[in-house]
């Protein structure tokens, strides 16, 4: 028979004001196995914990139940406390009398009754608890960073600086990401490439960083400290060791297609580097459009290459790497502004997205930085910026604020003014959201010093008339309709999750929110961790972020990876699922419900010598969610610490 001690916390007045804690303690004394019960103002305080330690010694207690707040808050506190008295931490049980009772039940009598029942259930469960222990697991002290934008680069540099190797995987032919596409950056107006390219080069030069561009992560197996990742390095059709980056190949290539890096505002060749400062500065052949691959002709690039580096028959290379931590830094996509059909039917040459604007005003962009109307090459005299296109719009399924558009629009108005002192610049906005260091001042400057005319209101329609775009909207401050004949309209396209974010989430076993952004483990207290151990988030793949926030979150995720690498080995979670293999029928219902891919099918030998299949849970991967235990038809999976027997005892106690 276990000897159980029960301690009821007042939590100041949080619990005591609606729960008669003395009465709960009194009731607990009559529960089977309880040899001691008391109540106290703050059980989590030092005197409260000492009270538990004293009672353990005096009454020879071997199970402890505390009725207090949520286990997510103080379970570790009390587990550490009982461990001091040489009790197994899993001999501790918690009843939540605050969040689940006093905060939600207002009638004192009913709340007290509910608290007694909660404690009775905890006592019943504690009576059946078994000692549990962690296993130690090795850690591969190497990180994988997925995505080579500013976030991924920063995270990789931080980890490499600390002396650990990093694999940086980028889908495009060059690292650099969105930041490489931008012209100037707010609120300092320094050139984006000027501050980014040194970091790109630093990443390439750092001996601890291995960069795979034009590559994608194809599979992830394993668990925290022990991942095994499969990376497909797409055939570049170039021998990287021979190529000198001279550029003759793409000068001579006859095929022109829209350049994705230029957001379609400019062209590239079939063999190309996406932009002049690319890292690595070596081309790839786009096999979808290259004449050699589509028609079996041409071959000019191979003929011209002085280094004989063009390799048409190069094949994809699939490599595997063992890593201990993964940082996801895959960035964001732009909202498809064509969905606004009231804006010139969705598309018009002189209606561009904010990112296209960045390319058109950038000195290395397709117009060498001369901002001209795409339709006829004229200098624009009236430019209208429209904010919140695909942000804060429920109808488009984008109720959230994209956070970056107010600031980049203000910046873009300044860039326009610097080129065209006499232009009229209008900005339609809903609210101006400039919460950031020196942000509000920056936006005021755009309005006051650079004379951007800000109009509060939405645009209801844009239509072409002659060579102008007529922008119809409302000025909700003056309370009247506005009509502007614009030469150029810039739509501040919102940020959204990558189109394939969900696929990556599934591969990694991490969660996404309703917009397919990756979910953090806790919105406030675990902002860069995912619910899956060893996988961290950086940058705008989690939610729209500007550059300073991306860099901060990247360094935060690197710190989390480094904290992991700083440990000699890992302690596994003791409360994991366990299959009674002797009774498992091998139906594998558990395998399909496991969100962490912790269940595998294994072959075991029967007594008769035959082979049968059973489920097995990898305790290193299992996060203790219990889904498999619930799904098991035969009831042969137990979640340790929450065994089927313990749950049944709790239910019995609840029904008493």
């Amino acid at each position, binding site marked *: 028979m276990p000897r159980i001690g029960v301690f009821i916390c007042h939590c100041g007045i949080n619990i005591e004001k609606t729960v008669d804690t003395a009465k709960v303690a009194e009731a607990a004394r009559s529960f089977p196995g309880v040899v001691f019960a008391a109540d106290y103002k703050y059980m989590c305080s030092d005197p409260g914990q000492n009270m538990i330690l004293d009672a353990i010694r005096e009454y020879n207690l071997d199970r402890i139940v505390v009725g207090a707040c949520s286990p997510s808050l103080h379970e570790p506190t009390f587990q550490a406390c009982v461990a001091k008295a040489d009790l197994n931490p899993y001999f501790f049980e918690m009843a939540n009398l605050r969040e689940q009772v006093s905060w939600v039940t207002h009638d004192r009598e009913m709340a007290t009754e509910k608290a007694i029942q909660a404690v009775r259930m905890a006592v019943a469960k504690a009576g059946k608890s078994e000692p549990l222990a962690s296993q130690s697991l090795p850690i591969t002290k190497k990180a994988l960073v997925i995505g080579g934008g500013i976030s991924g680069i920063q995270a990789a540099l931080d980890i490499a600086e600390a002396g650990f190797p990093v694999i940086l995987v980028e889908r495009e032919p060059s690292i650099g990401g969105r930041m490489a596409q931008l012209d100037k950056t707010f609120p300092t107006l320094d050139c984006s490439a000027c501050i980014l390219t040194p970091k790109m080069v630093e990443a390439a030069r750092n001996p601890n960083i291995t960069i795979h561009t034009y590559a994608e992560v194809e599979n992830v197996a394993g668990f925290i400290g022990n991942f095994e990742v499969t990376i497909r390095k797409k055939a570049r059709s170039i021998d990287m060791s021979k190529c000198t980056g001279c550029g003759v190949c793409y000068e001579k290539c006859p095929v022109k297609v829209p350049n994705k890096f230029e957001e379609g505002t400019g062209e590239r060749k079939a063999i190309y580097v996406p932009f002049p400062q690319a890292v690595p500065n070596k081309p790839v052949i786009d096999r979808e459009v290259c004449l050699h691959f589509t028609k079996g002709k041409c071959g000019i690039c191979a003929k011209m290459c002085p280094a004989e580096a063009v390799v048409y028959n190069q094949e994809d290379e699939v490599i595997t790497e063992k890593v201990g931590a993964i940082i996801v830094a895959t960035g964001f996509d732009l909202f498809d502004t064509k969905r606004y*059909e009231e804006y010139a039917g969705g598309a018009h040459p002189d209606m561009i997205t904010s990112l296209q604007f960045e390319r058109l005003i950038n000195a290395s962009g397709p117009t060498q930085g001369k901002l001209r109307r795409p339709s006829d090459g004229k200098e624009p005299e009236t430019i209208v910026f429209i904010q919140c296109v695909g942000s804060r719009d429920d*109808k488009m399924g984008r109720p959230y604020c994209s956070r970056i558009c107010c600031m980049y629009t203000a910046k873009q108005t300044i860039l326009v003014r610097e080129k065209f002192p006499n232009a009229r610049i209008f900005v339609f906005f809903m609210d101006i959201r400039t919460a950031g260091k020196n942000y509000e001042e920056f936006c005021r400057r755009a309005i006051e010093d650079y004379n951007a005319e800000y109009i509060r209101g939405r645009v209801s*329609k844009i239509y072409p*008339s002659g060579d102008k775009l007529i922008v119809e909207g409302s000025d909700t401050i003056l309370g009247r309709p506005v009509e502007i004949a614009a030469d150029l309209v810039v739509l501040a396209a919102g940020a959204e999750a990558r189109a394939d974010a969900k696929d990556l989430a599934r591969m990694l076993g991490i969660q996404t929110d309703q917009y397919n952004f990756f979910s953090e483990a806790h919105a406030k207290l675990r902002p860069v961790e995912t619910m899956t151990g060893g996988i961290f988030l950086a940058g705008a793949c989690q939610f729209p972020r500007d550059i300073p926030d991306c860099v901060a979150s990247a360094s935060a995720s690197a710190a989390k990876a480094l904290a992991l690498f700083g440990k000699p080995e890992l302690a596994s979670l003791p409360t994991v699922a366990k299959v009674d293999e002797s009774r498992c029928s091998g139906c594998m219902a558990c395998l399909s419900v496991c969100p962490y891919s912790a269940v595998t099918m294994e072959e075991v030998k029967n007594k008769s010598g035959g082979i049968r299949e059973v489920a097995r849970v990898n305790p290193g991967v299992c996060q203790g969610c219990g889904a498999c235990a619930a799904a098991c038809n035969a009831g042969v999976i137990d979640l340790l610490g929450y065994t089927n027997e313990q749950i049944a005892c709790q239910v019995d106690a609840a029904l008493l």
Partner: protein
Amino acid sequence: MKKIAYFPGCSLAGMDAEYDEASRLAARELGIELVEVEDWNCCGATSGHSTDKELSVMLPGRTLGTVEKMGLDTVTAACAACFSRLVTAQEILKEDKEMASRLMPELGISSPDAVKVLSLLRVIADIPKDEIAGKIKVRLEGLKPACYYGCLIARPSGLVGEEHPENPMAMDNLMSLTGAEPVRWYHKTECCGAALSLSRTDIVLAMNAKLIKMARDAGANCIVTTCPLCFTNLDLRQPQARKVVNETAPPMPAFYFSEILALALGIPRKKLGFDKHTIDVGPLLDHVLGASAGKGGE
């Protein structure tokens, strides 16, 4: 022949009899018999619907109940406002369970969506393209309609079916089948001003003058609509609107979509009430029908 209950509403029973006539004839050619709802009453699109919510449900609700009694599963209204009232009444009955349980037995409605409500445009747009194309007898080449949907055919989105609220296409696609060349323009769902037609005529005239200008600028030689209120503003009020902006370009004929369809389906021009239009459609029809070798003309 497929039978669909048909709610003409006050406009089509009165001032817009030509829309009624053209709609019935065109539908019959396409294999649809429009069966007039027995003893129908006002749809409530008047001030009725904004003065009393219950009344706004009961007026169209009675029609829905009658259609059920007639044993038909679909009701259509040619008038956009009637259509809107019928759909809205269904929606309120779906959402307001208390009101539904009180009113539905009285109105003879078994369930809020027992009867499907479709605009006449949708009924015809749902006929397979090939089927319509096979029945076109007169190709209306040279007709360049600006298809004008107004506010109630495509809105509120989510309530009225699959039309895009900002850029509906059903009428454009239908017009293309007749050989006409609908123009791309950006004022398909702009307000015609019907709500202010009597109280602020000055505003309405300015709005109409703009609509007609936009259609003309887009290359249209006529405006085609589905709504009697839009039609009244575009046709009856056009001479006034022209004065407001000192318009010198020739007037822009307006049509109901079913009139155009009826012509293309071979209904003789004389059988259709073009003489009721304020803006003379004669020269344009002479031009278009002359071009199609007189077939189906006078």
